């Protein structure tokens, strides 16, 4: 089941070509890290998926529906949290339910019904706050929360609507190291829930695409790493996907043993970040082949 399909997406600003023929298919339950040199068009791609800045060519669909503007199918977590100052943590999380499930006229003219629904929304919001370990801060305003807590609220806020895909733009970039590790482990926990759902034949709930500039973070948190850069044979036409491979899966309780990642990190640095190393863009794009190989190996005969 595909949560996000990007086909032939290209973008340019006047004469400057930024993105060239990007193809990417993300399945429900994947946690995909996007890395690339600064200015390679990562945020352009993110804005295109979000729908605020459509690209000049190509199509993007979320769960089969073409994206024509920002909507509830694509969630977003920003680096600087962007919580609503005037809402408490639980109200911030419940906002999506309020906006998605009810309308202004309903809230104004069917007030008694809305008020009882509101209680249910807040209860659900508190459940999500519990999932991000913030049950005790439900009544606090963002100004009274630390950076890490705010980002947890932002993640719960985006997840409560169960978007087809959740975009995270350098989500932990502004946080201190210890907090960052906590939040990375939280994402790993969500990935474990995905695996459990898959094993039970359900559709996994959390599909994420996150942009980061930390290669360790990309390889540690994600199950798939995508590299975007213009260091390929058609680089003058813009950046494209030059790296797409599975990466080691950590459990939250596993030791943060980054030596497991060294080899792939070197490969990634070489394939995505080295301006001297020009290759055909598909050389390291083998995610789906490798998945098919693994599946063949696991098959009974």
């Amino acid at each position, binding site marked *: 089941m595909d949560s996000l399909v990007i086909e032939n997406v290209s973008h340019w600003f006047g004469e400057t070509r930024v993105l060239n023929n990007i193809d990417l298919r993300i399945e429900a339950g994947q946690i995909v890290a996007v890395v690339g040199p600064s200015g390679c068009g990562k945020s352009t791609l993110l804005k295109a998926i979000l729908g605020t800045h459509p690209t000049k060519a190509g199509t993007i669909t979320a769960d089969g529906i073409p994206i024509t503007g920002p909507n509830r199918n694509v969630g977003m977590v920003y680096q600087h949290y962007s919580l609503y100052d005037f809402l408490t943590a639980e109200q911030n999380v419940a906002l999506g339910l309020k906006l998605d499930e009810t309308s202004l006229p309903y809230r104004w003219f069917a007030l008694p019904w809305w008020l009882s629904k509101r209680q249910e929304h807040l209860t659900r919001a508190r459940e999500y706050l519990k999932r991000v370990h913030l049950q005790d801060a439900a009544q606090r*305003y963002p100004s009274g929360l630390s950076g890490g807590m705010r980002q947890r609220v932002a993640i719960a806020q985006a997840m409560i609507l169960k978007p087809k895909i959740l975009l995270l733009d350098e989500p932990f970039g502004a946080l201190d190291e210890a907090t960052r590790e906590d939040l990375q482990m939280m994402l790993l926990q969500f990935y474990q829930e995905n695996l459990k759902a898959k094993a039970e034949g359900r559709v996994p709930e959390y599909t994420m695409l996150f942009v980061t500039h930390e290669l360790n973070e990309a390889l540690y948190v994600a199950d798939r790493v995508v590299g975007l850069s213009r260091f390929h044979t058609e680089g003058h036409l813009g950046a494209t996907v030059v790296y797409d491979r599975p990466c080691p899966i950590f459990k939250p309780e596993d030791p943060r043993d980054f030596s497991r990642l060294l080899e792939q990190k070197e490969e990634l640095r070489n394939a995505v970040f080295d301006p001297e190393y020009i290759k055909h863009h598909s050389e390291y794009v083998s995610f789906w082949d490798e998945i098919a190989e693994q599946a063949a190996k696991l098959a009974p005969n």
Partner: protein
Amino acid sequence: MVRYPIPQWLMIVLALAGLTVAISVYGILSARLTATNPSQTSLPGIKGMLAGLKQITARQGTEEKPKESWLRQDTKASLLRLILGIAIGVFASIVVGVLMGSYLWIEAPLAPLISFMAKIPPTAMLPLYMVAFGTNIQLFIAMVALGIFFSMAMSVFQATRQDVTQEAIQKAYTLGASDMEVIFEIILPQIMPRILENIRLQIGPAMVFLIAAEALFADVGFGYRIRLESRLLRMNTVYWYLALLGCFGLLLDFLLLKLRKWLMPWFQG
């Protein structure tokens, strides 16, 4: 040292001292003036001031047709004009400011016009309002409302632009908001503290506009009474009116600050 803190009790003592000095200076000046001219009314003493208080609170009219005291008549008239003027001006500037900050096709035609109008001293527009509304209550309401509208619409517009980030709006759409919901659920609550702050700042100018208009065109109201009484050199009534205006301004200020603390505990201005 600059900004060196001092204890609270000292703050209070100094505040009272300031007040005492101001009253004493007035008393000395008044006594000296009375010594040279016993019938002076420019700086009345305690006796004169009490007579003034009696004057403004005394019932007017004849036995058969009693009328309310000046203070009551003037307060009623001025308060009604001021409240209606501020209410209309504030409401219109919120609507226009928020719409300008939300839609470029509304901003484009209106912003240049409104920033131009905001530059004209509002009291200079009085003759225009008189031509348009005569000297009815509409004149005073228009003076107050339009006097604060242009500058306040611009600040609400700026607040909509600056206080609400692009990310906050885009995120609202990803949470399933409609355009109207973005305006009512995101923009309005976010800029509400700035709106209240603006109302607080506009009360002073609003009173200026009302007093000016009343001095010129009214036959009842604070501005009318102050001008009339000062023409008659009865400063003992004028000073009471001025003191009341000051107290009224302070009270509104205080109430609006309390209101903000109560309604918007999240705001840290």
